[in-house]
C-alpha cells in the first residue's frame, strides 16, 4: 500500500465532486472568524483563494514578494481560459474537456481531479464576468470564443492577448474588496522563507519584509502555497524574473512530497534567444497558431541563403516550404499540443533547417491568414475585383485587431515587422506541470499545508493544454479550496490562536537568519546570476526538451559541483536589514540548485517518454513519445532526506476507470 492517500471520493466520476460537497465537514460561520489562514502568493490561485475564504468569514493573511498583489505573473498569460460552456454549440461538454485534458496530459493526471476541474470551469467564467472582467464579445453582446491546441472545439474565452491580466485584475479586485473590509491582511514585498510545523501540522511561516529586512513570524491554522511554477530553474524562461520555487521548496524540506518535478512544459512559440545578456524569453501566445502557419525551408540551400541574408523568407515559393506540422499531423495541423509542436521544431532545427544565425528558429507565418481575412472583408464590404494591395491592407487590419499587442511586442523585441515578414520563433521553458504533491483536497503530505495552481502537480499530467493554467488556478482558488479546507479546519474550531513564541517558531527563525548570515558572510567574488546562468545551461542541455540517462547522470554531478561552487564563491553585497535584491536572488538560486538536482533524478527514474518528458531512449519509430503504462502509470512523489542524501521516490498509481489509455495521436 502506498504511503500516498489521494482521498478520491467514491462513486461514478460524474458524482464524485457532488458527493464530496454533500458530505464534507463544514465550519460554522461564527467559528470561521477565529480561524486564521495564510495564503502565500497572490496570482490567480492565491488571490481567488484569499478573497473567497475571506468572504466565507475566515481571517486571511496574504503575502506576495512583488510591490502589489496585482503584479503576480498570472498577469502575463495571453491567450485565454478554457471552460466547457458550449456557447458555440460545437459539441463541447464537461466530459470532452475532461477527456481532452487527460489525453493532452498524456495520461499522467488523476482522473477525479481533472473531472472536477472540468465541472467547475463554467462557474469561473460566470464569476469573472460578474466581477467586470471585460472578455471579448460579439456584436450580439455575447461572449466570444477561440480554439487552442489539442482540442477540436472552441472553448477558449479571451480578452485580446491579455486574458491573464484581466482575470488577475478581477481576482485582485476581489482581494482588494476583502482588504478594505479587514478580512484579508495584505503583506506585499514580503517573502516566505520557511514554513513552521507545530505538532505535525503547518501552523505558520517565517517571512522577510523585503523593504526593512525584518524577519517576521506569522501563525495560522493552515498555510496555502499559491506560489506558481519553477521554470526559472532554467534561468531563461517565460516566467517573471522573480518567479521562484522557494516557498514550495521550504515546504518540501519540511516534509511535503514533490510530485513529478521533471514535467516541464517547453512552449513552442517564443522569441528566440538573441545573446548572452538575455535575461528572459518572451512568449508569443499559442492563440497565434489559430492563424499562423509554422514552416522551415524544404531545401538546405535555401536555409543557407536565408541565414546569410541573401534570401528573405517571403522569396520562397510555396513548394519550397516545409509546413512540417501540417505534414506530420494533418488532423490537428498547427494546433497540436505544445509538447508535440516543440519537439517537432527541435527535430527540424537539429536536422539543420533552423532559419536564424544560431540555427534555432522556425517561421510562424501569417501571410495566408492575412489574405484569407482580407478576402472576407472585401466580401463583407461589397468590394468586387479587389486588388491584392487592398486585400492585404484589410486583412492586416483584422489580424491587428486579433493579435495587435503580440505583434507590437514582437516588433519591439526583434526590430522586425511581423505583418510583412514571418515571425521567427523557438521553444522555451514556460510552465511546470510538476509541483507539490496534493490529494483531492489539495493538501500536501504535511497536514494543513495546501498547494494551489501551478504550485501543485495535480491536473495537467505530463503536459498542460493551452488556456488551462488560468482555468486551474481559478478553479482551485474560487471553487475547490473553499470546500476542501473545511475537512481539515473543522478539527480546529477549539484550537484558538496559534502562538508564535514557541520553540518551533524560534528554531525556524534561527535557521532563516543563519542562512542569510551565511550568504552575507561568504567571501566569494561571483554574483548570484553567474551561478544561476550556469545551472540554467545544464538544465536546458540535459533536462530540457530531450533527455537521456547519460546526460541526466552527468547533470546530477554537474549540479552538485555548482552547489558547492555557489556556497564557496558567491558574493552577496549589502546587509540583511535593508532592501537587498541580491540577497533575495541568492536565496532563490540556492533553492533552484537543489531543485535542479531533484528534477534530473526524477527524469532519470522515469524510464519512458510522456508529454513534456521526452527520454530519447523511449520513442516510436517516427519519433513520438513512447509511454510505458505498465511500469509508469503513476505519479512520482519525492520525499526529502537531507540535501546530501538521495530523496525517496514514492508512487501514487493512477487508475483510469473512465478513459482508456491509448497511444496519443494527433495525426
Amino acid at each position, binding site marked *: 500500500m502506498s504511503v500516498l492517500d489521494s482521498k478520491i471520493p467514491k462513486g461514478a466520476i460524474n458524482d464524485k465532486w457532488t458527493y464530496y460537497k454533500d458530505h464534507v465537514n463544514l465550519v460554522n460561520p461564527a467559528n470561521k472568524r477565529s480561524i486564521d489562514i495564510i495564503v502565500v502568493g497572490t496570482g490567480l490561485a492565491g488571490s481567488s483563494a484569499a478573497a*473567497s475564504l475571506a*468572504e466565507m468569514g475566515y481571517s486571511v493573511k496574504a503575502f506576495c514578494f*512583488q*510591490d*502589489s498583489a496585482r*503584479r503576480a*505573473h498570472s498577469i*502575463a498569460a495571453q491567450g485565454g481560459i478554457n471552460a466547457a460552456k458550449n456557447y458555440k454549440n460545437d459539441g463541447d461538454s464537461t466530459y470532452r474537456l475532461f477527456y481532452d485534458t487527460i489525453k493532452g496530459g498524456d495520461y499522467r493526471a488523476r482522473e477525479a481531479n481533472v473531472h472536477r476541474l472540468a465541472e467547475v470551469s463554467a*462557474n469561473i*467564467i*460566470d*464569476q469573472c*464576468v*460578474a*466581477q*467586470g472582467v*471585460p*472578455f471579448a*464579445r460579439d456584436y*450580439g*453582446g455575447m461572449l466570444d470564443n477561440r480554439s487552442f491546441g489539442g482540442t477540436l472545439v472552441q472553448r477558449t474565452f479571451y*480578452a485580446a492577448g*491579455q486574458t*491573464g*491580466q*484581466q482575470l488577475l*485584475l478581477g481576482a*485582485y*479586485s*476581489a482581494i*482588494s*474588496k476583502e*482588504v*478594505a473590509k479587514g478580512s484579508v491582511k495584505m503583506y*506585499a514585498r514580503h517573502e516566505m522563507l520557511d514554513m513552521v510545523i507545530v505538532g505535525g501540522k503547518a501552523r505558520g511561516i517565517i517571512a522577510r519584509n523585503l*523593504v526593512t529586512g525584518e524577519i517576521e513570524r506569522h501563525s495560522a491554522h493552515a498555510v496555502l502555497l499559491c506560489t506558481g511554477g519553477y521554470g526559472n530553474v532554467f534561468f531563461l524562461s517565460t516566467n*517573471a*524574473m*522573480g518567479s521562484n520555487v522557494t516557498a514550495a521548496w521550504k515546504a518540501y524540506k519540511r516534509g511535503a512530497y514533490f510530485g513529478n518535478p521533471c514535467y516541464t512544459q517547453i512552449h513552442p512559440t517564443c522569441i528566440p534567444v538573441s*545573446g548572452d*545578456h538575455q*535575461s*528572459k524569453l*518572451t512568449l508569443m501566445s499559442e492563440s497565434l497558431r489559430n492563424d499562423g502557419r509554422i514552416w522551415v525551408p524544404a531545401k538546405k540551400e535555401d536555409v543557407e541563403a536565408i541565414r546569410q541574408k541573401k534570401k528573405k523568407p517571403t522569396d520562397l515559393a510555396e513548394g519550397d516550404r516545409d509546413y512540417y506540422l501540417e505534414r506530420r499531423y494533418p488532423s490537428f495541423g498547427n494546433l497540436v499540443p505544445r509538447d508535440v509542436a516543440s519537439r517537432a521544431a527541435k527535430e527540424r532545427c537539429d536536422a539543420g533547417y533552423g532559419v536564424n544565425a544560431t540555427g534555432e528558429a522556425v517561421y510562424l507565418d501569417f501571410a495566408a491568414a492575412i489574405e484569407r481575412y482580407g478576402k472576407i472583408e472585401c466580401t463583407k464590404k461589397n468590394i468586387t475585383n479587389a486588388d491584392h494591395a487592398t486585400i492585404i491592407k484589410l486583412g492586416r487590419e483584422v489580424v491587428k485587431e486579433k493579435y495587435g499587442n503580440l505583434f507590437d*511586442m514582437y516588433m519591439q523585441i526583434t*526590430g522586425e515587422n511581423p505583418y510583412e515578414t514571418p515571425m521567427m520563433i523557438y521553444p522555451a521553458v514556460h510552465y511546470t506541470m510538476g509541483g507539490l504533491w496534493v490529494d483531492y483536497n489539495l493538501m500536501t503530505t504535511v497536514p494543513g499545508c495546501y498547494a494551489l495552481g501551478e504550485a501543485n502537480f495535480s491536473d495537467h499530467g505530463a503536459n498542460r493544454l493551452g488556456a488551462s493554467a488560468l482555468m486551474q488556478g481559478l478553479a482551485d482558488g*474560487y*471553487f475547490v479550496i*473553499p470546500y476542501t479546507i473545511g475537512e481539515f479546519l473543522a478539527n480546529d474550531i477549539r484550537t484558538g490562536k496559534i502562538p508564535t513564541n514557541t520553540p518551533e517558531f524560534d528554531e525556524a527563525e534561527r535557521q532563516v537568519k543563519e542562512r542569510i548570515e551565511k550568504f552575507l558572510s561568504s567571501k566569494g*567574488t561571483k*554574483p*548570484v*546570476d553567474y551561478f544561476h546562468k550556469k545551472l540554467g545551461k545544464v538544465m536546458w542541455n540535459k533536462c530540457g526538451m530531450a533527455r537521456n540517462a547519460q546526460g541526466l547522470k552527468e547533470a546530477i554531478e554537474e549540479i552538485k559541483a555548482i552547489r558547492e561552487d555557489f556556497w564557496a564563491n558567491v*558574493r552577496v*553585497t*549589502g546587509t540583511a536589514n*535593508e*532592501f537587498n*535584491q*541580491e540577497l533575495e536572488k541568492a536565496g532563490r538560486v540556492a533553492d533552484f540548485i537543489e531543485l535542479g538536482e531533484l528534477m534530473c533524478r526524477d527524469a532519470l527514474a522515469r524510464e519512458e517518454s510522456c508529454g513534456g518528458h521526452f527520454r530519447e531512449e523511449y520513442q516510436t519509430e517516427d519519433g513520438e513519445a513512447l509511454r510505458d503504462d505498465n511500469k509508469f502509470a503513476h505519479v512520482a512523489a519525492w520525499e526529502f532526506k537531507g540535501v546530501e542524501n538521495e530523496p525517496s521516490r514514492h508512487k501514487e498509481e493512477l487508475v483510469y476507470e473512465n478513459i482508456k489509455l491509448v497511444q496519443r495521436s494527433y495525426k
Partner: protein
Amino acid sequence: MKLTLKIWRQNGPNDKGKLVDYPVDHVSPDMSFLEMLDVLNEHLVEKGDQPIAFDHDCREGICGMCSLVINGRAHGPQGAVTTCQLHMRSFKDGDTIYIEPFRANSFPVIKDLAVDRSAFDRIIQAGGYISVNTGAAQDANNLPVNKNDADKAFSAATCIGCGACVATCKNASAMLFVSAKVSQLALLPQGKIEAQDRVLNMVNQMDLEGFGNCTNTGACEVECPKGISLDNIARMNREYLVASVKKEK
C-alpha cells in the same frame, strides 16, 4: 556601444540622494534597457560595490512593476512601451542617459530607483471592484454587453498600474489611473449599481493619498505605456459630478 549613465542613487527614503556617473561599454543594441542595467549590476557586484536597486518582474510590459524616468521621460523615449520592453537600439553610441525614479510625494523612494506605489492599492481598495462574492454569479451570457461598451471597458482595463501617469504629471496627479478603473466598471452593466459610491470613494482616497489635481495638460496620456485615453478622465469627472449631486439629496 559606449554610454555614460547618470543614475540616481539614494540609500533609503531619508537619504538625500544624488546622480552618480557610470560609464558602460559593449552595450549591444539587442539588449533590453533592464538587461543593460543587469550587466552593470553584475560588474558592480564583482567589484564589491552596491548594485543599483530597481523594480522589475515580468519583463514583457504587463505586470507594471518596472518604472524609471529615462532622460526625463517615464519609461523612456519611445511611446507605448514600458521600460522593460525598451531596447538599446533606441540609443546610439556615445549617448549620456539620465536614469531617475518615478518622482511624486505619494511615491516615496525605497532605495535608488525603487519607489513605494502602495497608494494605488489603497485607491483600488476604496472601491475599484464590483461587490460580488464567489458563487453568487449568474450565467455569463445572461447579461449581454454592447460590444462597443465592452471594447471601451477593456481598453480602460488594460491599465497596468505602473504610475507613469503620476511621474509624468507636473501636479503628480493620479487621475488617469483612477479614471481607468472608474471607467471600466462604469461602462459595464454589472458595475452600475455601485458606480456612484465607487467614484466618490476612489476620488476621496486619491486626495487623501496626496496626489495632485488634474489641469488637463494631457502629459499622462502621452507617456502612458498602454495608451489609456484622457476620455476616461472626462468620464470620471462626469460620474463624479453626477454622483456628488445625487448623493447630496
